[in-house]
């Protein structure tokens, strides 16, 4: 617990002192633009001409609510993946990885501290997107129910597990820019953020199932717009948990192997 707290404080202090604005402003702008573009298309360009196919795919949700819920969860996914994924390589770049690897502290609480630090920031971004969305006409009345909050927490857990694997990939390739952007662009295309994935070819829909975001966003929408309970969505919850377990174990094994070889190869 102590370790989680001190990791939290260390990262937070660093961010507040060095780059207080960049990370949050950038993700809020991206999230808001992700709503505003469909809003402009919907209201000004296509003049609310939504097809019946959309309503069938979206389970009766209206267009703006559909888009806003998707974008908000996407913001949460991007920030969790980005911060957990970049944790180790940032240590490497700032020159503190060696200390971290040589210290007796276990990696679990370290990542938990990173998660705690970033989730408190990401929820602000999430809220900002929802508020703008509500101004654009999204109906978000059911967002404060227990089921919706559970769906959000489950989603964050899924993203966290995926982030662990991502942190190994980034450290291995020594790259953040290309890995993260490729991942995020693909996720926002295939996971059903701004449009139902049923429009995509079948094989792309199948591929989309490997991202926790796909079932998580469906669950979130079912709970908030459909007013469904958690029990009705057992299959989606199971899918997120299963994916999390796979990513968690893969990330754990890879990171352990990588750390050993790093200690051999990098440090004198």
């Amino acid at each position, binding site marked *: 617990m102590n370790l989680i707290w001190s990791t939290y404080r260390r990262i937070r202090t660093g961010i507040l002192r*060095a*780059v*207080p*604005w*960049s990370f949050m*402003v*950038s993700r809020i*702008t*991206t999230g808001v*633009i992700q709503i*505003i*573009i*469909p809003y*402009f*298309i*919907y209201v*000004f*360009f*296509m*003049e609310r*001409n*939504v*097809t019946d*196919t*959309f309503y069938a795919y979206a389970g009766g949700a209206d*267009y703006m609510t559909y888009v806003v819920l998707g974008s908000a969860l996407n913001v949460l996914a991007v920030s969790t993946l980005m911060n957990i994924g970049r944790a180790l390589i940032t240590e490497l*770049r700032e020159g503190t990885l060696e200390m971290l690897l040589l210290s007796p502290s276990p990696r679990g609480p370290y990542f938990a501290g990173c998660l705690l630090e970033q989730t408190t920031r990401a929820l602000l971004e999430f809220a900002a997107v929802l508020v703008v969305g509500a101004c654009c006409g999204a109906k978000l009345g059911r967002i404060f129910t227990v089921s919706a909050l559970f769906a959000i927490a489950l989603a964050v857990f899924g993203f966290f597990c995926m982030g662990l694997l991502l942190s190994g990939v980034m450290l291995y390739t020594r790259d953040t*820019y*290309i890995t993260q*952007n*490729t991942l995020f*662009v*693909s996720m*926002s*295309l295939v996971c059903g953020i*701004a*449009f*139902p994935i049923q*429009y*995509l070819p079948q094989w792309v829909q199948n591929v989309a199932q490997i991202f926790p975001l796909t079932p998580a966003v469906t669950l979130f929408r079912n709970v908030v717009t459909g007013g469904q309970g958690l029990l009705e969505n057992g299959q989606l919850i199971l899918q997120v948990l299963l994916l999390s377990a796979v990513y968690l174990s893969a990330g754990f094994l890879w990171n352990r192997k990588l750390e050993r070889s790093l200690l051999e190869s990098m440090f004198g």
Partner: protein
Amino acid sequence: MEKILRVMKAEIIKQQQYDYHSYFVWCSLLIWPVLGFLEVYYTYKPFAFTGYLGIHDSGDLLAFLGTGYMAYTCFWSMVQNAWSMSLQEREDGTLEITFLTPASRMAMNYGKALGALIQEVWMFGCFCLFVLFYTHTLTLENLWALPLFLCLLLFSSMIWGGMLNAIFLYSRDASMIMDVFDAPMILFAGTRIPVQCFPVWAKVISLLFPLTYCLNIIRFILGIQGGGAEIMPDLAGLVICLGVMAGVTAWLIRRVEKHNRETGELQFY
């Protein structure tokens, strides 16, 4: 003049060597815009076409989005390049060279933006092929316009990238400027949605971005949603916009240098 060109060339070569070291980089640079392009295309799927502004079916839409993306990727790559380079230079401790060399600061600044030159030509080429073969908007009659488009986009995006670059010199936290300028540019410049259907306040914002004028000119020449449009106001707007930006860039660079000399810090990070 020769000196200035030499400085710019040196900056371009430096960045090419730093950033474009493998085929992987080239591929991913193309993959992002293509994936983004597909995303926008699918974002339109839930809607029924009404023929508004000359867009009747998905073919018209693809031509519209294709040109939008062709121009936007050029701007985007300049800015992205300038941003990542200034961040790397800051981390590596070479950013202060900007103020320590006798070379022209403006030339270095534009050289940094132009580091994305080859990347830009490559992406432009790929999107052109797409527009050419898939949407049939490019025909033999207007093929002459391609080099013109490329020069237009290169020059305007260089001025744009140079201005943002000068802002990045201020602080490492300035990268947020990129997002503040880049994301709204996608919306307001009309890359994905025709500017003509915007409400008045949004039209006014769109006048701030040089990309708006570039897109209007390109779409006018290709005959996409060109009914009743004129090219002269856009040309004039582009010239004024770029002129103001070049002025702002020069002012910013002088200001940053003065500020840093006064506080006694020519070293960054």
